[in-house]
């Protein structure tokens, strides 16, 4: 069902944990299958210096969280914003079709973390590419 790379990231997920005093936090989930993921970012000079995640979910959810953190680490906020769920899945060698909607929420969670970063820094000029992420309201209710 899963590619070798998915299983590798599932077995040895990278960047698991939380960042104390993060610069941005993003939470995303699928209320139907129940998967929830959180992304924490540390930003310096517009670069994602550190990123960590926590995920409740299946093998695909953990693997996509893990590889997404690797894909954005050291990237500019704009580059990280350009990350899509499709790109995350492709980087893993593909996912079963039902898992795309169920478990591949990593890019969405990252977008929320970046959005949160700009919310915490009202003094920063908002870039053109930044738009409020859309997700499942019930997942974010506790944050708002």
């Amino acid at each position, binding site marked *: 069902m899963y590619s070798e790379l998915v299983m590798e990231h599932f077995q040895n997920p990278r960047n*698991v944990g939380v960042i104390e005093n993060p610069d941005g936090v993003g939470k995303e989930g699928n209320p139907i*299958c*129940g*998967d929830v993921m959180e992304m924490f970012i540390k930003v310096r000079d517009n670069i994602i210096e550190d990123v960590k*995640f926590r*995920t*409740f*979910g*299946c093998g695909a959810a953990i693997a996509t969280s893990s590889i997404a953190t690797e894909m954005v680490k050291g990237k500019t906020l704009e580059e990280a914003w350009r990350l899509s769920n499709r790109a995350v899945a492709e980087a893993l060698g593909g996912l079963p079709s039902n*898992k795309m909607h169920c478990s591949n929420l990593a890019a969405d969670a990252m977008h929320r973390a970046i959005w949160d970063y700009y919310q915490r820094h009202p003094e920063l000029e908002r870039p053109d590419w930044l738009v409020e992420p859309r997700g499942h309201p019930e997942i974010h209710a506790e944050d708002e």
Partner: protein
Amino acid sequence: MSRPNKTIYMDHAATTPVDPRVVEAMLPYFTQKYGNASSIYALGREAHAAMEEARSRIAAILNADPKEIIFTSCGTESDNLAIRGVAWANRDKGNHIISSPIEHHAVGHTLEQLHKLWGYEITYVPVDRYGVVDPDDVGRAITDKTVLITIMYANNEIGTIEPIAEIAKVAQAKKIPFHTDAVQAGGALDLDVKKLGVDLMSLSAHKFYGPKGIGLLYAKRFTKLVPTQTGGSHERNRRAGTENIPYIVGMAKALELAQNAREEINRHVQALRDRLIQGVLSTIPDVLLTGHPTQRLPNSASFVFKGVEGESILLNLDLQGVAASSGSACTSASLEPSHVLLALGLPPEICHGSLRLTLGKDNTEADVEYVLSILPGIVEKLRAMSPVYQQMRSQ
């Protein structure tokens, strides 16, 4: 505890390995005695005789008449034939069916279709927090339009055994046909249809060390039944299609072996199951046993682990050589949590962390101890990265 050099199979509710003695009984009917049971020449008569002998042996175990045994392709087909067959045959009498919310999809989806396409009304009597149906609830649900009651014998996910004989009395009092899906009970529980008092009962061979692809429906004499698979006059005009002789022979052999060793196997797996349940509940925090504490299949241990997702537990177990299953949403095509666990009143977020370990005759104490040695670490690792569990703990 080091990883054994074999897979530890703890998913016997999904399927069982075929007993070599069953394979041996089947083999001649593939290449030597391969006749069509409907043919009149010697090869055909030989096949027909083997089928009828198998039918008689199965009927003896079920305390039924051989004419009451209908061979099908699987438990799902048996359930379909029982439900659609009786519902359609009694359409002039009414359109109301009583069932439970924890039935296998072979029953549940068939009832949904009868409702949506043909307007049948379905009453799902509730289950308690252990998954047990109250026979009095069944009695209260009966109307003058009720044409069928279908309640499973034992649940495939949580192992709870239903009070079938008591429900049968309720049905008999009102002269309503009563079907039980006994697929999960086959080989483990008493299948005497007269003691149980059922009118229809579904079984599938691969749950009791027989081959996949063969099942049966017991249908009591004079039960009105419309065939759902039409064609030739096989199975006394109740199920068309060339009979699968090797598999029928295999099912009879498997049922005999299971029946003869039932008490011994039950004693063995129940001791292992009790150790497994005790070990899990005593070493892992925030875990619930699902299903009835005692009124459950002897081989069935099922749990929900708060704050972790079932598929992730399964994958980790598989990586360490253990085959199990889960009712987790992520293991189902629909992505919905298990309808069985929801019916017990468990919150959806808890249902995601389900694990089912079902033991078989070849499991050993060492197998159970191995699972108990690795499962706490798996759950702990997953919980450490679970925001849901962290949130639960902080509340």
